[in-house]
């Protein structure tokens, strides 16, 4: 199979994904964008002892040690694969493996059963070492039906393991998947280790006699059978999953019992059936001491906003319109009203942006989130915020475009839209997180910049970051800095209150309604310098245009410099932004393993760039910029620094893989 170039074909619509990290040394260098408060906590790699030990069930079969494994659960979108993957992730996290996950689901809510476009998959990469990506080639594919096998088989390495739910391999289902013959029988899978397991039949037998469970409900429990089987294979703790089942189905005893029975049946099937000869052990990954949890980017981003609200003492108002994949932020924030979070599901994207901005005028922390087409719709309001010079955070969970594009697939092609996608000169700071966990830090940093500089700030996350998850060292609350709103409370000039009289950061005063004596009007019409009155004076317009730009540029004084990771004195720099960081670091490890020299650097602040960015990029004769677009950061770097940077571009709705980057670097050394 072609891992580096080929487009997903129609027959492989879910062709994923991702990048391996075999035997990588610990990098720990999330440098270059260390925020003051998390400096101490991001480094991994010191060996430490986890609290947990292995699961209670003893192992009766041959046990093999593995360093890393990639498991992919694939089935019909109604088969509960995301749930199975999610539960497997929790058990894996609790066991102490490092991990990364990637859900890969269709845009259709419920495509017809058994069809190729109805296949939903969940991939998890877990290891006893530091992991940078959700992995490229699955070692194990759980295929709940023929369509799932067909769409996911191209990803699996030859020699990989396939566990097929053979009950679903009927003529009818084979036909729907376009198989002329049963691949479990025609020899076409000879290169793989294939296990045929009648998951449905066994699940039905296991749930027989449970009061009140219908056949249909019993059949639906088969995802727990699959989960139980894979949990046995990799020695996952069972108590974590069983506890979850008990809690989740507390009010439905029969479903609880059926799911428990199916899970146990799967686990026991692995242990007792002669089919499986080996159980695998993956030691816990060495990690820095601390308390960890698993998080995806969406939740981390939401919590970062809440943390910033707490630390700034500004009540959070989040307004957005439902849009994939940004809706997750609205859902998560809506759950936390006890933090004083106000969430509004607005009538449209434009209203959402205006509501957040209106709240900002009132002294609240106004945030709006969106994706894809919503970015276009909000741009006029962001321009207004730039002229108002009020704090506003805009979260863009980027997805494949243009237009509706591929709503559930990732891309990072909104950088130039964020940078330049408004009429007139409208500079806006831009930040992009690199990992799910870093979404927390970047959300917090975006609020700090917005509030300190009185400016709209763009956060460019993406579908991949939003959905994928990793173990995350929970930050110490006390280590987070306060964010000072510094509201204007009194007149700042002999002639009264001057709403556009700036401080040494060029930020203007934030005087909120309710403050006596500071009544003032702001608007989208050009402001006279200092007084804020309407002005059509040309010289004033030029001065204001330059002041707004200078203010944004000045933020560079206040952010960490860009640090290159260059142990060998390389000639080639891999420069990245956003979610490509994992693949870039993994590719660099691979290159260094065979003695190649390559440097890496990653930008979290895209506007302004860290002040030393020019020095860093000019130090390398070759610069390669991997991007999930056709060269947007590359364009900015070339234009700004007059260097011959080249883009490694991929726009397939899937993340960039380490092996393809490794090849690209090799070709240039």
């Amino acid at each position, binding site marked *: 199979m072609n891992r580096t170039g080929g487009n997903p074909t129609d027959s492989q619509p879910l062709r994923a994904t991702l990048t391996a990290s075999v035997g990588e040394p610990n990098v720990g260098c999330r440098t270059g964008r260390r925020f003051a408060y998390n400096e101490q906590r991001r480094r991994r790699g010191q060996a430490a002892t986890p609290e947990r030990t292995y699961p209670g069930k003893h192992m009766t079969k041959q046990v093999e040690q593995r360093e890393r494994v990639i498991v992919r659960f694939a089935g019909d979108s109604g088969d509960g694969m995301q749930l199975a993957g999610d539960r497997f992730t929790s058990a894996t996290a609790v066991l102490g493996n490092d991990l990364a996950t990637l859900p890969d689901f269709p845009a259709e809510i419920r495509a017809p059963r058994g069809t190729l476009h109805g296949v939903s998959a969940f991939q998890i990469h877990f290891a006893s070492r530091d992991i940078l990506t959700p992995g490229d080639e699955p070692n194990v594919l759980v295929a709940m039906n023929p369509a799932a096998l067909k769409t996911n088989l191209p990803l699996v390495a030859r020699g990989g393991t396939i566990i097929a739910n053979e009950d679903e391999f009927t003529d009818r289902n084979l036909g729907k998947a376009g198989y002329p013959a049963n691949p479990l029988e025609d020899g076409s899978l000879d290169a793989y280790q294939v296990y045929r397991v009648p998951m449905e039949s066994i699940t039905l037998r296991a749930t027989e006699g449970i009061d009140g469970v219908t056949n249909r409900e019993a059949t639906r429990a088969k995802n727990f059978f699959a989960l139980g089987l894979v949990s046995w294979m990799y020695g996952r703790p069972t108590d974590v999953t069983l506890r979850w089942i008990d809690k989740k189905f507390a009010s439905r005893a029969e479903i609880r019992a059926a799911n428990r029975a199916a899970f146990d049946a799967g686990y026991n099937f692995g242990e007792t059936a002669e089919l499986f000869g080996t159980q695998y052990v993956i030691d816990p990954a060495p990690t820095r001491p*601390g*308390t960890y949890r698993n998080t995806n980017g969406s939740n981390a981003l939401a*919590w970062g906003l809440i943390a910033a609200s707490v630390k700034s003492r500004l009540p959070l108002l989040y307004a957005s319109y439902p849009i994939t994949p940004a809706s997750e932020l609205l859902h998560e924030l809506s759950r936390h009203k006890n933090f004083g979070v106000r969430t509004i599901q607005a009538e449209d994207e434009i209203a959402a942006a205006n509501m957040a901005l209106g709240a900002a005028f009132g002294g609240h922390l*106004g945030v709006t989130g969106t994706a894809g087409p919503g970015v276009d719709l909000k741009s006029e*309001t962001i321009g207004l915020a730039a002229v108002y010079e009020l704090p506003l955070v805009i979260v863009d969970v980027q997805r494949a475009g243009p237009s509706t594009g591929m709503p559930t697939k990732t891309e990072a092609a909104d950088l130039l839209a964020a940078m330049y996608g408004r009429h007139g000169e409208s500079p806006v700071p831009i930040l992009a997180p690199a990992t799910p966990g870093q979404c927390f830090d970047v959300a917090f940093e975006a609020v700090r910049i917005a509030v300190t500089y009185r400016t709209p700030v763009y956060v460019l996350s993406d579908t991949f970051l939003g959905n994928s998850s990793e173990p995350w060292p929970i930050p110490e609350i006390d280590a987070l800095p306060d964010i000072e709103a510094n509201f204007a409370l009194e007149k700042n000039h002999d002639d009264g209150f001057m709403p556009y009289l700036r401080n040494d950061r060029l930020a203007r005063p934030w005087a909120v309604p309710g403050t*006596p004596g500071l009544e003032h009007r*702001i608007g989208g019409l050009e402001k006279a310098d200092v007084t804020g009155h309407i002005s059509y004076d040309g010289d004033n317009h030029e001065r204001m245009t330059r002041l707004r730009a200078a203010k944004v540029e000045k933020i560079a004084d206040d952010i960490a410099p860009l640090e290159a990771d260059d142990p060998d004195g390389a000639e080639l720099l891999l420069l990245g932004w956003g979610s490509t960081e994992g693949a870039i670091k993994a590719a660099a490890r691979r290159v260094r393993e065979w003695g190649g020299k390559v440097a890496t650097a990653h930008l979290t602040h895209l506007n302004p760039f860290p002040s030393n960015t020019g020095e860093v990029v000019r130090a390398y004769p070759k610069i390669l910029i991997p991007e999930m677009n056709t060269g947007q950061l590359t364009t900015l770097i070339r234009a700004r620094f007059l260097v011959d940077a080249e883009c490694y571009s991929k726009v397939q709705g899937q993340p960039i893989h380490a092996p393809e980057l490794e090849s690209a670097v090799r070709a240039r050394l």
Partner: protein
Amino acid sequence: MATVELTRKDFTSDQDVRWCPGCGDYAILASVQSLMPKLGIPPHKIVFVTGIGCAGRFAYYMDTYGMHGIHGRAAPLASGLAIARPDLSTWVVAGDGDALSIGGNHLIHALRRNVPLKILLFNNQIYGLTKGQYSPTSEVGKVTKSTPFGALDHPFNPLSLALGAEATFVARTLDVDRAHLTEMLHQAASHQGTAFLEIYQNCPVFNDGAFDALTDKATREHTQIRLEHGEPIRFGSEGERGVIRNDGGLLEIVEVANVGEDALVVHDAHAADPSLAFSLASLAARPTDPTPIGVFRAVDRPVYGEAIDLQIANAREKLGDGDLHALLNSGDTWTVS
């Protein structure tokens, strides 16, 4: 019951007013500035939010807090503020193009939510700032720069639209009738929830005389149907004409002498059912016919911002004040020592 001694001057900014001479906006501005001291709310607790159009300048002339937004978006801009800060008195000023064309979607959603806003619709039935194109309230056949052969679009009836969105306060008044305008502004100011006040406003440059039938001394007694809650609906110099509900259930204008006073419809602005208000809103096809003015509907419904605050209070009671440490440490965690 003013708690502070304020005058119109306290609400008048130092900016030169720059509408065209004779514009109806002057009269509205004067009425609003004069009313403000009577509300007992200090200038720093009042915010005017405007969109784009001649009416958009209104915010700059009030010595209160103010936001001049982008075209059509005053309602959500003000909604965000009012939801965050229910302690403020938040006013929206928008023209017919701003509120009903580019901003139509926002208007209906603000009305259905019942956000605490006072929305003043300056309806002059024309685009003035862009120098004379027909608007969504212009009549069919209107000849303008963009419709030299006459407008083809059927116009909106703003009150029907507001009532259709189940607005809780819906009223209409006239720019030149200072007393009625002031009374309507006062009632709008006192309403909990969204108040929607349509003000027929003359544009002397591009649509002069659109409301003459309602405002001319000679005709106004015969064209203004002044609605008073609890009173029979009648008009004319001697109250000789009135409104009845005919056998088909529709409102009809009749000579009182022909039907008797008891047959007249008694206005009920507080009825939960909006159908009377809706019928009254569509009684006049154009403001050249006898046209109801006054409060069509004023009812109570939960106010949006208050409801959010209540949810927050309930969540705090149930879950306790937000604890960041607890939030981040919720779910499955593990410790590496």
